[in-house]
């Protein structure tokens, strides 16, 4: 695979916390712009750690990561916020700010980016409508159900129309109908050009999403137990 259209590139990447064993090792793969990727693997395989590397919450202990064409080891700290604004994150534990309303949580990325308050209000209300929480805009996260919190987290992640959306178990706390709606939202974003990476255990969700690429992690490395996936991962349809 060449570098044209590549949005993320991992070269011999390893990650360890402190002096412990490597959580991730020898990761070599590329994600293309506009791709839809599912990251799967058993618990403890390193999915969340890999996502942390993707959304710049961790630096690799070895190897090289390039994001949006920029090698991260050459990126100045002051340039990181600019890269992060191009990434939407849905955390596994939602990480909503408890003392802010659902509206203010969703509006946060736009406020950080310095948008005008009028634009923020319109966009946030529209996004809350998308995830079915218009009537809960003023509620604070502790008063929301798990599923509602997850939808607020998703709305916050996508409101800035990110180039890369990274979601850790985004449908884990919602019912099947809401899961389908959220996947529809991710699909719509993907069709608009956003690269989407979703870590999930939900095999059914993967099966219902044609054209997605599967990345399977085991014990910190990318594996292909079926033999149906090339390394580095490619679109599933290409190997079918």
């Amino acid at each position, binding site marked *: 695979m060449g570098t044209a259209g590549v949005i993320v590139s991992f070269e011999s990447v390893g990650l360890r916390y402190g002096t412990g064993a490597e959580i991730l090792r020898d990761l070599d793969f590329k994600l293309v712009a506009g791709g839809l990727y599912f990251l799967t693997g058993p618990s403890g395989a390193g999915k969340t750690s890999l996502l942390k590397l993707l959304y710049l919450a961790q*630096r690799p202990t070895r190897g090289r990561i390039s994001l949006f064409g920029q090698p991260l080891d050459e990126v100045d700290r002051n340039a990181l*916020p600019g890269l*992060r604004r191009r990434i939407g994150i849905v955390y596994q534990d939602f990480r909503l700010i408890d003392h*802010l309303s659902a509206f203010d949580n969703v509006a*946060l990325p736009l406020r*950080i980016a310095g948008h005008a308050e009028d634009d923020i209000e319109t966009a946030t209300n529209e996004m809350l409508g998308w995830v079915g929480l218009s009537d809960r805009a003023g509620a604070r996260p502790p008063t929301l159900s798990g599923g509602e919190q997850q939808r607020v987290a998703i709305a916050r992640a996508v409101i800035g129309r990110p180039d890369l959306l990274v979601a850790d178990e985004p449908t884990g706390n919602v019912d099947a109908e809401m899961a389908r709606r959220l996947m529809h939202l991710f699909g719509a974003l993907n069709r608009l050009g956003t690269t989407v990476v979703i870590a999930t255990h939900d095999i059914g969700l993967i099966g219902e999403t044609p054209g997605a690429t599967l990345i399977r992690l085991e014990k910190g490395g990318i594996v292909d137990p079926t033999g149906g996936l090339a390394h580095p991962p490619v679109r599933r349809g290409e190997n079918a």
Partner: protein
Amino acid sequence: MRPQWALTAAERQLLPAGRRRGPTRGLIAIMMFVMVIVAAAGLAIGNAAALLSQATEARYSIQLPGGAGQGDALARAARDLDGVRSARAVPEEEVNETLDRWLGPAAREADLPVPALVEVEFDDNADAKAIETALRSEFADAMLVANRSTIQPLLRSLRALGWVAASLVILVGVAAGAAVVLAARAALAANRDTIDVMHGVGATDEQVVRLFQYRIALDSLVGGALGAGLAALVLLLVSASGLAIAGRMAGQALLFPVDLLMLALLPLGGALLATLVARRAVLVSLRALP
């Protein structure tokens, strides 16, 4: 256009309001109280030393050993000399009273050679040596003693106390700075989740720092104003009693308007310093994050 340091209402909400009421304000209030009191004492001591030094600059005593009864003649002779503004013979009774205080009532019975004593004040730029020489042509044993040299040890002590006060103000300032650093780090730790989310959605370190900077500035201003206000009250009470006496002794107030201005600026300076220290501490901590 909004200044870079100013926060919008939405930004102010990012740190929970409840956590603003920590011990920081109380701590800063106590430290500012101590700083203002110590600074006021130091300034008053410094001013007292300067006033005393000024008051004794042109004052001298003429002593004539064993010259009891010649005081008036000595004073007249002194008055006639160039450079002498005034001369007053200290009455013998006054000299005896002084001796009584030092030596007890037995001093009167002992046949002590009581000197004649004259208090003189010189004109500005008067030549003390020439005056003494001229005086000795008439009273060979007359000695001219500068009052300044008599109180020199006291002036040195007062100046040393002034420096001690200044050092204490600096030490309390450093302690307050350290307390602010700890408070800033504690606030950072308490709000770590919010900071991670902010960083995650693309906030710059500067945007995060501004939140804490605002909070510390507010705490410092409120705490500083409280401490300084309380100190002002104490100073008013003291000045209505002890300090006023000292002031009357020195002939004027011991704290001048410029001193009061300096004291009033202490809380503002303290708040500014606290804000800068907190800003630096938060920036250093943030740079340690990924």
